[in-house]
């Protein structure tokens, strides 16, 4: 027993549909581990199996040394779960929501009172504690859901797309709080399709696509492994690009031609930009930047829109 989570050939099927197709991964104590992938990649199904609310179809899974299939209640008592969709009780106040949830874990009321004070303070909700949940903003509801997930001082906090649908201010507050939790040694598992979120929060992550893991590593190592150091983005007037695509392809080791835009992946942006001028091309705009996780993500999971 050393891994906090160990999955081998983990598979989830719903009838004929395979949501998770034999994935392997391990998560270590104190780590902040991410599942990055487009919608429908199998992230949430994986989270639900880890959270012992969805039976596994095949393979093996141990979480905190326990078997989610056989020791579900015991395991869930040590997990904190922040689901994708808020499922707070809208008719109750913030205080009552936390008290009610804490009681599901059979925590004594007196202990809960102190714990709730701490959590509300930590998530900056103290002023609103007597308000009903249906009057809160999206960002506050999310923070409350995180507070709720922490009520039992979990050994592992599972966050399924924690900042989807929030405005930038709310996202940054949330990141800040999650980062502090990480500093305190709480193990986090985060699913997201935001690259900046993964870069901010994850020590290590896997990229999932079509039910499989397609890459694994730290954000930095993924970028260096799957994308050259820099990217030059050039934009042309509509229609121009078709005629010059073959020229562009000679300007960098790897290129990608989009509708009116071309991406040139290179180790030396300056030289590539000079090459564009030398080839006599006249793009509308040229942007040279560092490669990001987004380039890795699009490279690995493709550009086709996932519905």
């Amino acid at each position, binding site marked *: 027993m050393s891994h906090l989570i160990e999955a081998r050939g983990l598979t989830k099927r719903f009838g004929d549909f395979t949501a998770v197709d034999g994935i392997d991964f391990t998560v270590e104590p104190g780590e902040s581990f991410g599942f990055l992938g487009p919608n429908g990649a199998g992230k949430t199904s994986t989270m639900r199996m880890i959270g012992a609310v969805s039976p596994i179809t095949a393979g093996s899974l141990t979480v905190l040394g326990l078997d989610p299939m056989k020791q579900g209640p015991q395991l869930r008592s040590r997990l904190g779960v922040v*689901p994708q969709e808020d499922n707070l009780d809208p008719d109750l106040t913030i205080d009552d929501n936390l008290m009610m949830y804490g*009681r599901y874990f059979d925590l004594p009321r007196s202990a809960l009172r102190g714990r709730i004070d701490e959590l509300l303070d930590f998530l900056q909700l103290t002023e609103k504690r007597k308000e009903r949940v249906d009057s809160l903003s999206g960002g506050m509801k999310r923070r409350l859901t995180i507070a709720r997930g922490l009520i039992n001082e979990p050994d592992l906090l599972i966050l399924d797309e924690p900042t989807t649908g929030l405005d930038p201010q709310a996202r940054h507050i949330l990141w800040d709080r999650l980062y502090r939790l990480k500093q305190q040694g709480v193990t986090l598992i985060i699913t997201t399709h935001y690259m900046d979120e993964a870069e901010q929060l994850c020590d290590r992550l896997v990229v999932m696509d079509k039910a499989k893991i397609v890459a694994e590593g730290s954000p930095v190592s993924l970028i260096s492994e799957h994308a050259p150091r820099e990217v030059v983005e050039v934009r042309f007037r509509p229609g121009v690009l078709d005629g010059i695509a073959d020229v562009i392809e000679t300007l960098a080791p790897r290129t990608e031609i989009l509708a009116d835009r071309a991406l040139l992946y290179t180790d030396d942006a300056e030289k590539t930009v000079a090459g564009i001028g030398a080839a006599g091309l006249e793009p509308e705009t040229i942007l040279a930047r560092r490669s990001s996780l987004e380039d890795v993500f699009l490279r690995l999971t493709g550009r086709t829109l996932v519905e």
Partner: protein
Amino acid sequence: MTTPLSLRVFESEARLYRNIWRSSIASSFLNPILYLAAMGVGLGSLVDTNLPGGIDGVSYLTFLAPGLLVATAMQTGAAEGAWKVMAGLKWTKTYHAKLSTPIGVPSLVFGHMLWSGARVLMVSIVFAMVMVAFRVAPVSESLVALGPAFLVGLAMAAATTAFTARVQDPAALPLYFRFVVIPMFLFSGTFFPISQLPDWLQPVALLTPMYHGVEMSRAVVVGVSPAVAPWISITYLLAWIAAGTLLAIRPFRKRLTP
């Protein structure tokens, strides 16, 4: 000493109820008062004038009250099994939240049934108090008449929960009330003996859980012997409770822990 999981579910329902208990209890009083005044006393005087011997030898008010007691319990059970369950599964998804804690599906269903039983008991006790106030029956008889009402309420809560857990579209619930609950309320012996029903409809009434409760409660209040032996009726109602509860577990699992 740990609290059983289903009791933790019960406690959470009680916490929710704390917000609305005043209006809820007030309407539990108002409802039987209005019904007994209008149907029992008002309409009853007309019935009694035309039936000098009364129904089963008693006034219409006395005939009606135990039937309405059971009918109220029946409707309360149905409401708990319909709206509460649809909210937990679909609207607020609070059942999903509960399942991220040590609580599992069977404890969730049992806890829900415990709470439904508590609600049925509350409205039945209030109804019995109103019955005493209307001088339909003394306290002791009213309390005994509660028993069958309680069983009918639980039977309907269980059956309705199993039904609600199987429907995806909430629009099915108003239809369920219109075509199942209201007809049961009207035609299971509450307002008139089922012998007044057309021959082909009588066996249907006989199969409803409500009919068995009405017969037993009325037997206590009116002092006649029920048409069906009480042990058969009680067994029948217990079977409804058990079957409904068990039949709810599978669709709950399918929806909450797929």
